[in-house]
């Protein structure tokens, strides 16, 4: 005896037309296998539906809070490790690149030292010129205002830098992460 489409009708939760339902009932009367399938399926589904929801042990939310703090701390440590490892890796790559360039070119270590000395001298020269510039301006009528503006700007930059360091170190970079 063929079991299709009756088996499919039984196993799929589709609405049957009155004619299909009549046809299915007639088949179930004649086919013990399909009848057994229908009975078993109904009983199993009934069992699923009748089984109540299971709750976790009391104190789940408290355990969540503890777990959240631990996970955040772990995540923070991982971020910090990643940051330092990336920095070290970056420095190693840069130094390796520099070393490779020195090896491949005629640029010797001595040349490099001379170059660095020139750069340092240039920076010192720049600061000397800046100092002269500031001294000249200090003697002008606008000197106090000018000096206050420069100092305030510098202080703001330093404060911003400190705030960013604090934020990354203690609050993390995730949007929903907050300090303890």
């Amino acid at each position, binding site marked *: 005896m063929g079991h299709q489409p009756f088996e499919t009708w039984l*196993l799929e939760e589709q609405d049957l037309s009155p004619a299909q339902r009549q046809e299915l009932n007639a088949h179930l009367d004649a086919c013990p296998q399909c009848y057994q399938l229908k009975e078993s399926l109904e009983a199993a589904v009934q069992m*699923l539906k009748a089984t109540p929801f*299971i*709750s976790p042990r009391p104190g*789940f939310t408290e355990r969540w809070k503890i777990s959240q703090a631990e996970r955040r701390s772990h995540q923070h440590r991982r971020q910090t490790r990643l940051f330092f490892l990336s920095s070290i890796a970056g420095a190693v790559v840069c130094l390796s690149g520099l070393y490779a360039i020195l090896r491949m070119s005629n640029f010797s270590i001595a040349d490099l030292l001379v170059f660095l000395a020139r750069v340092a001298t240039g920076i010192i020269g720049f600061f000397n010129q800046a100092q002269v510039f500031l001294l000249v301006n200090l003697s002008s009528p606008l000197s106090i205002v000018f000096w206050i503006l420069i100092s305030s700007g510098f202080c703001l930059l330093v404060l911003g830098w400190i705030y960013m360091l604090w934020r990354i170190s203690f609050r993390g970079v995730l949007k*929903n992460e907050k300090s303890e």
Partner: protein
Amino acid sequence: MRQIEQQVLQRALAGDEEAYALVVEVYQTPVYNLCYRMLGESGEAEDAAQETFWRAYQALNRYDRQRPFGTWLLSIAAHFCIDQQRKRRLHTFELDEVAEETLPDPTPNPEKVIGQLEQERALHQLLAGLNSQDRAVLVLRYWYEFSEEEISQSLSLTVSAVKSRLHRARLLLAQRYQAAQPQTVVGRNHYGSPAF
């Protein structure tokens, strides 16, 4: 499934930790129940439920507010449990553990307790034969009364794939139920269900 107040949810989405703790309080049972039905072991279910809430917390900024929050949460739980099950086979069911963890009614009624234990054991045996996705489909369909569309969204499947999995899971369920029952004489004219 209980719904959380929109105001609390909004606060949680804005990063308020206390509000998110309320979310955990409200959804702990549905999430834990799904994990338990999927993994079959209370310790793993607890870990999976905790992991679900952590993943949801981290992904709050990606939550689509057009979607019910509970459905989204259960979707995360189902995906995590499916991954866990792929990593290992379902643990052996332990009757003692059910006695400790799953009895919702603390009334000291030995007959009732034994009945519940038997039912839980039978249920675990039925579900144990299904693969993880088929089990997730069945759990969401019959415990959470999800539609096929909701299941497809939750498990990232097409609706036709959900239908196919439901078909296969129901067949296996019936076969396993039948196999677990003592042999009985099959009668006729017993289709008393309104569906027939």
